[in-house]
């Protein structure tokens, strides 16, 4: 079954608006939650990541909000720009031999920011 569920599948936002992408997980052993950004023709690249000991992490216009009790986390892009148009993947990982450092990815959100 899918370990990380991501929504929405696609998102259209006006320039200057806020983009919000949500993810949920079930496995309480997960302790690392990164977001990857993928531009057309490129491989995904790490954008920002959070560990469950904090509820929020901000890097520039990008913020992860994390709700441990609800097992949910979200990416907020403030003042969205056309250059942010990309596919965004949430992911989760847990330490230990059973996962061996693999990431479990959501299905992705295609973000389009209109000028």
């Amino acid at each position, binding site marked *: 079954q899918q370990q990380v569920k991501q929504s929405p599948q696609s998102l259209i936002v006006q320039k200057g608006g806020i983009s919000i992408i949500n993810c949920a997980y079930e496995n309480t052993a997960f302790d690392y939650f990164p977001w990857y950004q993928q531009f057309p023709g490129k*491989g995904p690249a790490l954008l920002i990541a959070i560990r469950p000991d904090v509820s929020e992490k901000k890097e520039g216009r990008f913020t992860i909000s994390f709700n441990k009790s609800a097992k949910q986390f979200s990416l907020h892009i403030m003042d969205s720009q056309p250059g942010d148009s990309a596919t965004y*993947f949430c992911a989760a990982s847990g330490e230990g031999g059973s996962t061996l450092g693999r990431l479990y990815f959501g299905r992705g959100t295609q973000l389009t920011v209109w000028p």
Partner: protein
Amino acid sequence: DVKVTQSSRYLVKRTGEKVFLECVQDMDHENMFWYRQDPGLGLRLIYFSYDVKMKEKGDIPEGYSVSREKKERFSLILESASTNQTSMYLCASSLLPGASYNEQFFGPGTRLTVL
């Protein structure tokens, strides 16, 4: 700069052919991964390897095999290509097995078409 390179950007093969996809990383990473990316399905893990000559099945290993004879090189093999294996294939690497806080570095992808 971490660099993950894939042998081809585009590949066209016939049904039943044996196909080799090559991936090389130059950062002395322990972990290497093969994913396929399909619209609406996100990134699905095919196989990964946490050491030379070691391999672990991912979520969709059927129809694929892998080889890791050297630390820097990880090959994906389609023994008998089928049309349902038409997809974008992405290779990634990360530093340490068993650690969850591992950034994965992706190659640019190989778009494989099986006719």
